[in-house]
């Protein structure tokens, strides 16, 4: 294909628009100066200071815990939903169910966060023995919207998988549960992995919903970043942001790899 110069320029401008701010954050995280906008020399001092910050480290631990737990929950519930959508035929209420499954992806985050907060408050009023807001409520909130992504991934994977392999297993004497665990699950394993990683990244990145449902003792990383910026930007936050970008990029890369492996496994 012939190269058209201004198309290349437009592409370059687009990429710059998207990634220059990120690049700036990463570059300035290695700045020796305390001032965010003045470059004085290369240093990794902000990274070591970040490691020494107990509040940030605690938030990182919270975010990772929430991410792992909510992604796992989302994979379990999302797989069940995706399986039902692609394998149970035209059951009663299928349309309502499929709409309900993807709704969390299009409902504004503020609304989701607010409604979940109201739900948790009401639940605790009715059942006072429940623990207050904290990691558990963030996990539930995150799983409720990341499971939609997982359900779509699993549904797409199952739709592309011929039913005859599962039918053959049934014909060979396997009961439905055995067919699901021994045949279906192993065949969609790459999609499960991709779904888990995506759910984890979505959870790690979420600020709005977590802010609504978090308790006083459960601050996630995005919440720390956001609140510290209001007190002026510290280069420490640049270092944290650089690490978050790197982690997200690696995880998304892994998810794409897992999805591709799944596709190639299917002949």
């Amino acid at each position, binding site marked *: 294909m012939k190269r058209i110069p201004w198309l290349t320029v437009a592409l370059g401008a687009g990429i710059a628009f998207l990634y220059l701010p990120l690049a700036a954050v990463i570059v300035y995280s290695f700045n020796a100066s305390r001032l965010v906008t003045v470059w004085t020399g290369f240093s990794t001092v902000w990274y070591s200071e970040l490691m020494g910050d107990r509040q940030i480290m605690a938030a990182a631990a919270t975010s990772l815990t929430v991410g792992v737990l909510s992604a796992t929950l989302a994979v379990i519930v999302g797989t069940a939903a995706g399986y039902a959508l692609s394998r149970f035929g035209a059951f009663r209420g299928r349309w309502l169910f499929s709409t309900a499954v993807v709704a969390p992806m299009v409902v504004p985050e503020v609304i989701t966060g607010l409604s979940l907060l109201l739900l948790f408050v009401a639940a605790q009023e009715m059942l006072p023995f429940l623990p207050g807001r904290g990691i558990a409520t963030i996990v539930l909130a995150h799983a409720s919207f990341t499971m939609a992504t997982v359900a779509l991934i699993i549904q797409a994977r199952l739709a592309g998988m011929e039913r005859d392999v599962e039918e053959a297993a049934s014909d*060979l004497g396997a009961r439905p549960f055995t067919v699901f665990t*021994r045949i279906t699950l192993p065949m969609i394993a790459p999609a499960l992995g991709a779904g888990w990683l995506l759910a984890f990244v979505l959870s790690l990145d979420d600020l709005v919903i977590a802010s609504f449902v978090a308790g006083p003792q459960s601050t996630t990383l995005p919440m720390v970043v956001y609140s510290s910026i209001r007190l002026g930007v510290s280069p420490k936050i640049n270092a944290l942001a650089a690490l978050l970008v790197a982690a997200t990029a690696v995880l998304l890369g892994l998810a794409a790899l897992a999805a591709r492996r799944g596709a190639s496994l299917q002949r």
Partner: protein
Amino acid sequence: MTPVIRIDGVTKRFGDVVALDGVSLDIFENEFLALLGPSGCGKTTLLRAVAGLETPDTGHIFIDNRSQDGLAPYERPVNMMFQSYALFPHMTVAGNVAFGLKQDGLRGAELAERVREALARVEMESFADRKPQHLSGGQKQRAALARCLAKRPRALLLDEPLAALDKHLRERTQLELMTLRERLGITFVVVTHDQDEAMGMASRVAVMEKGRLLQVGSPRDLYERPDNRAVAGFFGHMNLWDGTVSTGDTVTCAVGAVSAATSLPAGTPVALAVRPEQIVLHAAGATPDSGQLAGTIADVVYGGTVSTYFVAHGATRIRVVRQNGAGPALERGQAVVLSWPVSAVRVLPS
């Protein structure tokens, strides 16, 4: 003799499409039955209904006199080989074969022995540790076959077993399936759209069209004594002439009055069927005993052993097959006389 599989008035609809329309068929011990028909005729649906993968809307299926109503595929004593082979991609060939046996509770040395035995039967022992994606088409077919046979089913259901193979492998596999069936003494039910395949393999053929059974019989029965136009036209070539029964065992049709053995009353509309190889060609002026008809050779297609002649009689073209060298050479445009024995004429409902 009680049948292994009894299909009794089975009907199945998919939306507005009638896939099976009141099909009844008995399949017996030790036979090789072919379900033959064009795609969409319901043959695969019938096979899947026997396996339990489709539930009939009405009618029943019995295996060994036991009703299969409400029984899931995993509760039925038959196994199916899928057209795609449907091997488990995440298991080795041996793992695939062992899967079905493990469902029966087999473990340890007995399991290993049964897997080995099944693989040996199809000469696949050396591929036991391969994954399906590293097998050729023919090897996949054998692995799928071994997986079914290991279960020692009452009947083996094969959905287009040769369709995915290339031509020269197809012929060999066809013979192998026949020997395998004879050695094991298991009933085989095979679905195919290829009449040569059905005729070559099966001891009995059930011809289907639009969800109905047209005729069931040995390949010879179907070829020589078809019951209706569809079956007559399905196997090989057939000269078909529409006509009406006249008095005195004669049918008046497109080529004139033709003698035919029929007990139908005069005036009944019928179709006459005569195989091209049953018609004898004579030079013009000959006076054969029966079924005389004069015509002109409109076309000759040379085919090595035999040649096909198209003889024009009025507006009708009659197909005749003659062994080459069986008489004087006949050229295009030559006037000829055709004859055939009365027994060669088949009277079919129109």
